[in-house]
């Protein structure tokens, strides 16, 4: 300790004051190499200041505090009281929904409006948390307590919780009006059932009313179910999981330890990620089946050749894939579920996970008099995410106008963060349109990883530019240290590598089996690049973002591909 003008100050305080030099900080966060900010160097503070901040600050792509040195204590579900007593009568900023978009907005509002009082009202009993680990990292964790604590190891070896912030970050709803510098309060277990736009107030499921000045609707959505399962009766429903929330993860995790066979219906992001996660976990003991109507995994997202390649990889994770599968009927027989396909095939399984899309939650549209989009679903909002004066919508539930790409609705984590942040900015007077393009990513095991941005729809014409992959080009290699555990090379893989080495001679590559190791795929609409997939090529998102932002017609996309340096790490 040092005495300075009568104050006892620790060295760390003084340390902050004496700058060394500015240094470039690459922010790496939870999802490196998928952090959209990763490649953007920030000249932050002086290094001493930063050395303190490095303890607590991290990039916002996941709204994460990564540097929690021990697993954050599991945030217990906050008890929802029956009485109205804890419900504030008024909230200057009212956020309906307690997910990623809502949390991002809360943070944005607090950053811009000093002393802001923000109230989040959520149906769930949980504090705001991030979803991607529920179908990824949490399944790969070695920690047997992971399901309980919801903590997992990040790419850099550090533990973190899926909750954006621990309970101490929040102010209690009853204190919100009084606390000196404002804060964020979360009212859990309460649903907003009615919205009165003229009087600027909402009514909750327990009858309480809250008036607001600015309101955000970030209600997300609920998983869709297959009609045939809905109609199939209780025994089938009991053995079906619709996966979205923490409780779904916990329940499926338990089931995966108890049953012999699980079938995932759906070939998109969630279905494929869960299939891989379960396949890896259960390889020797159980059977994991994935079925979908398309020809390959991610069939609606990736061009056919990549979708096929991905499907092979998912198979290697131990998943039994059934393509061209349209479910006609599901019934409960002899303590098993029997799935009958349209083409007559019969599949027997113990448990079903339906990952067939999300239905945006637009129940407030009626009482609030808000428009719902008939093409994309969700609340229709303008380019600034505004539905009406004082009402904004963000996240999965928002059908918004993207200045560059047109009207759309996006169901990805980074979009929830970006749109939530934008809504928060606009709620505090920024009047900015949706400009910063969000991205998304997927890792299907250690060999297949991609990042994407824009409109990535396999029905669009595409141009893919690929390089020969080396052993270095995988998500596992692209990260410093994989939190998922290094997958040991199988014998077959070793053999495959040797074969390739022999055939990689001057003769034209046509003779080799095509290996889409790494590259970049451009999705075109009227000759303009509207979407880009970076296939096993990481840390290049800013370039991709720039190309989409420019919206130019490029005569030769191979030249554009050069900008990505796909042959380098």
């Amino acid at each position: 300790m040092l005495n300075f003008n009568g104050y006892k100050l620790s060295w760390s305080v003084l340390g902050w004051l004496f700058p060394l030099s500015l240094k470039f900080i690459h922010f790496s966060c939870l999802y490196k190499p998928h952090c959209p900010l990763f490649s953007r160097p920030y000249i932050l503070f002086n290094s001493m200041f930063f050395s303190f901040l490095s303890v607590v600050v991290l990039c916002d792509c996941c709204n994460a505090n990564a540097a929690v040195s021990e697993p954050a204590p599991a945030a217990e579900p906050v008890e929802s009281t029956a009485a109205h007593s804890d419900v504030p009568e008024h909230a200057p900023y009212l956020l309906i929904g307690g997910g990623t978009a809502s949390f991002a907005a809360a943070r944005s509002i607090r950053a811009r409006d000093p002393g802001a009082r923000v109230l989040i009202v959520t149906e769930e009993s949980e504090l705001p948390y991030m979803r991607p680990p529920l179908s990824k990292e949490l399944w790969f964790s070695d920690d047997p307590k992971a399901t309980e604590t919801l903590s997992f190891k990040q790419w850099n070896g550090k533990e973190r919780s899926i909750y954006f912030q621990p309970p101490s970050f929040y102010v209690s709803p009853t204190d919100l009006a009084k606390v000196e510098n404002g804060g964020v309060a979360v009212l859990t277990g309460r649903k907003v059932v009615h919205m009165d736009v003229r009087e600027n107030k909402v009514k909750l499921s327990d009858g309480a009313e809250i008036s607001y000045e600015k309101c955000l609707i970030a209600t997300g959505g609920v998983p869709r179910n297959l009609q045939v399962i809905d109609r199939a009766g209780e025994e089938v429903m009991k053995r079906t999981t619709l996966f979205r929330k923490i409780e779904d993860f916990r329940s499926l995790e338990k089931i995966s330890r108890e049953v012999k066979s699980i079938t995932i219906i759906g070939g998109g992001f969630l279905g494929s990620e869960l299939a891989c996660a379960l396949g890896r976990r259960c390889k020797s003991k159980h059977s994991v089946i994935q079925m979908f109507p398309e020809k390959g995994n991610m069939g609606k997202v990736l061009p056919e050749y990549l979708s096929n390649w991905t499907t092979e990889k998912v198979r290697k994770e131990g998943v039994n894939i059934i393509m061209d599968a349209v479910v006609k009927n599901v019934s409960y027989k002899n303590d098993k579920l029997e799935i009958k396909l349209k083409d007559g095939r019969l599949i027997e399984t113990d448990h079903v996970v339906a990952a067939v899309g999300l239905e945006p939650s637009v129940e407030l549209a009626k009482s609030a008099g808000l428009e719902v989009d008939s093409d994309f679903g969700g609340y229709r909002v303008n380019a600034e995410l505004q539905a009406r004066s004082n009402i904004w919508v963000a996240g999965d539930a928002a059908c918004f106008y993207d200045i560059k790409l047109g009207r759309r609705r996006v169901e990805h984590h980074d979009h929830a963060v970006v749109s939530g942040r934008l809504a928060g900015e606009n709620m505090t007077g920024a009047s900015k349109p949706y400009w910063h393009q969000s991205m998304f990513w997927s890792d299907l095991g250690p060999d297949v990883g991609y990042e994407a941005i824009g409109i990535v729809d396999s029905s669009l014409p595409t141009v893919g530019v690929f390089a020969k992959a080396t052993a270095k080009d995988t998500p596992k290699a692209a990260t410093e240290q994989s939190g998922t555990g290094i997958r040991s090379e199988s014998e077959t893989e070793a053999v495959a590598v040797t074969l390739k080495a022999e055939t990689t001679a001057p003769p034209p590559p046509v003779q080799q089996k095509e290996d889409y190791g790494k590259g970049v795929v451009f999705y075109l609409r009227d000759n303009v690049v509207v979407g880009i997939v970076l296939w096993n090529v990481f840390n290049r998102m800013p370039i991709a973002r720039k190309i989409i932002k420019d919206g130019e017609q490029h005569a030769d996309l191979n030249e554009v591909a050069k900008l990505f340096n796909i042959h380098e790490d």
Partner: protein
Amino acid sequence: MSYCKQEGKDRIIFVTKEDHEAPSNAELIEDDPNDPYEDHGLILPNGDINWNCPCLGGMASGPCGQQFKDAFSCFHYSKEEVKGSDCVENFRSMQECMQKYPELYPQEDDNDSAPSGGADNAPSDSVPTSSPESTPATTENPAAS
């Protein structure tokens, strides 16, 4: 040599390293540094601090957000020879506040918890060249009490 094939509407090009060696002739539009819509880093074009910068994480929005903003603003605008030396009071109240929330602001003096390895370009030799011994000398001015 690169070669190319077409599968329906999808075109696929395979390129070697040599194929991509020549610099690209693709034209990109020059960025407008004053674009009001663009996300900026920590410091805005006009020199102000962007409190909503994702790089700050929850620092400006948490329970100690106000103290943090005061301290960092003071530091940012400080014109003292030793930048920030006039901000001791602000940093002190920030630290006081942060100590009340150890869960949110873990008080660690070492760099153990910093993002590891490749995250930083410079080695984390954050030993100040102005060593601790000299600091009393430089700060022994009649600072604000």
